């Protein structure tokens, strides 16, 4: 199945109400993040000392935190950091996992072995622990967090890409392209890569919400970006000390984060069902039944 056909089918078929709600939620959060400077009438650092830990009022729609900062304004600005850092972390994970991974595979057995030994080592550490370690090494800040996210999630991408690549290499069109004199890099870029797009998109949809959650965990632990830069994780950490006086200040970012991760997961799940050829569900039932070979490699792909 070509990725184009997959996208056509994704667009053409019935959209479940849950997916629609998730899509709307993500779009609203994206717009809120993009429009933060226009939407907010004050800076996320402005302190209203007459209204510390205040509940929702006409002036502060979601109330204020322990320093009298407007929760809604901080939520809007925090969405920017959370989304940008999450997206850049995902991009780096792909550059390392898919980019470097595929180059290492194409370059030869030795480079493949070496790079995947590194990947294996990274994989042995959970994302949070690797994050703590890298932030210790590089100092806290936005860039170390992005590096930590990219490194932590690169194995997830690399291993899936390696499996998918091995699956494609064994197929006839690759042998055909090679027999026409196509070099390994040429075959990779022009023949194999287009067939990996479905897998890559699917994997991106899995990695992005995880990056966002891990970024929030790191900010929550005080290891993320500087205190001046509002992030949802840091808002939760700050407000957790005043949970009794001002539950609204902590509920707002918690709910925002849950809505974002839920919506992204729902969308990612839909994408996977429609785009990933390694999933039996993505293949038209008639094709799977008609071809025993197709069924065999589908089962094999799903297993790994």
């Amino acid at each position, binding site marked *: 199945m070509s990725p184009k056909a997959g996208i056509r089918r994704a667009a053409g078929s019935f959209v479940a109400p849950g997916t629609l709600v998730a899509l709307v939620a993500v779009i609203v959060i994206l717009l809120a993040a993009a429009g933060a400077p226009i939407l907010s009438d004050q800076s996320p650092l402005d302190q209203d000392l007459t209204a510390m830990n205040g509940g929702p009022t006409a002036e502060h729609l979601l109330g204020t935190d322990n320093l009298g900062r407007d929760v809604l304004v901080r939520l809007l600005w925090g969405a920017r950091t959370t989304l940008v850092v999450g997206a850049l972390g995902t991009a780096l994970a792909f550059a390392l996992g898919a980019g470097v991974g595929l180059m290492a595979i194409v370059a030869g057995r030795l480079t493949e072995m070496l790079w995947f030994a590194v990947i294996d*080592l990274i994989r042995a550490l959970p994302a*949070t622990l690797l994050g703590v*370690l890298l932030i210790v*090494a590089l100092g806290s800040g936005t860039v170390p967090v992005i590096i930590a996210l990219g490194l932590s999630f690169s194995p997830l991408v690399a291993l899936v890409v390696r499996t998918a690549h091995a699956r494609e290499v064994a197929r006839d069109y690759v042998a055909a392209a090679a027999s026409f004199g196509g070099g390994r890099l040429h075959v990779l870029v022009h023949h194999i890569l287009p067939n990996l797009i479905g897998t890559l998109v699917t994997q991106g949809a899995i990695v992005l919400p995880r990056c966002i959650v891990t970024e929030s965990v790191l900010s929550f632990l005080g290891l993320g970006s500087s205190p001046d830069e509002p992030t949802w994780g840091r808002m939760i950490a700050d407000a957790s000390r005043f*949970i009794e006086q001002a539950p609204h200040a902590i509920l707002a970012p918690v709910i925002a*984060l849950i809505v974002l991760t839920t919506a992204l997961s729902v969308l990612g799940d839909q994408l996977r069902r429609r785009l990933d050829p390694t999933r039996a569900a993505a293949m038209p039932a008639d094709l799977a039944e008609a071809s025993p070979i197709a069924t065999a490699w589908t089962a094999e792909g799903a297993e790994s």
Partner: protein
Amino acid sequence: MSRWLPVLFALLAGLARAVGIVVVTWFLCRVMPGDVVDVLGLEGGLSEAQQADLRVSLGYDRPIVVQFFDWAQHALAGDFGRSVRFDRPVADMLASAAPVTIELALGSFVVGVALALGLAIAATSMKSRLLEAAVDGLNIWSIAVPTFCAGVLGIIVFSLWLGWLPVIGSLILPIIIIGLDNAGQIVKLVREDLAEAVMLPHVRTARAKGLSPWRIAVVHVLPVAAPIVLVLSGLVLSGLVAGTLTMEILFGLPGIGSLMLNAVHGRDLPVVLAAVTVVAVALVAINTLVDALHRLIDPRVNR
């Protein structure tokens, strides 16, 4: 012998991984900008000469490779040096923090696996819509709700609204929250594996004999699914680390996570090194054992 060879290889690979991680951890920690001497210098107003003396007494002036082997030698004997901040042996600090973390991790692991297994077995043998929905719900919960958000919600609901538990220092709530997360991560996969195992011929025979669904599930289906359950138990470890770390902070529990973070903020290098190393090596060890055990009970993976 051929049965044990893959197990031996798995153990050796685990050892290599552990050594690799320790080396990487150590050198990463050593490049951190601003060591503890800088921090103490700022706080206590140490002069340049005093700072230099302190560095010499800490051994920071020696070649870095020498420092590593010195550290590794002592660490192998259980001596992680002294905390620069608290002037206590790091090993003692770890020992007093470990029980909290172990209780938290072990408790939530047991809760998680028991819940996932129980729910998956029930859903497989009873064919109930409600149970299927519970499986899906638990799975979505673990994907969508980060543990520290669940912790915040738990505190608000149970402590503030219902007034059941004290917020700080409670272990029950964090164990349940991490346990739910663990269960959600594996329940769907266990359920899928059980659904496949149910289709096997010997299970059909058992059903034809008229055995009760529960007996079939426990005696005939579960042993087939044991390997996957084992592998999945290894999978929850990563979530367990994030979970215990954030829960310790949120609930003010004095475990290894709290120790590590305080040390990171205070640039207390020996403590950071020891805490990260101990946790990382423990994880590699558990994963290696799971892998070895898996190869032992399910020779199919050795191919």
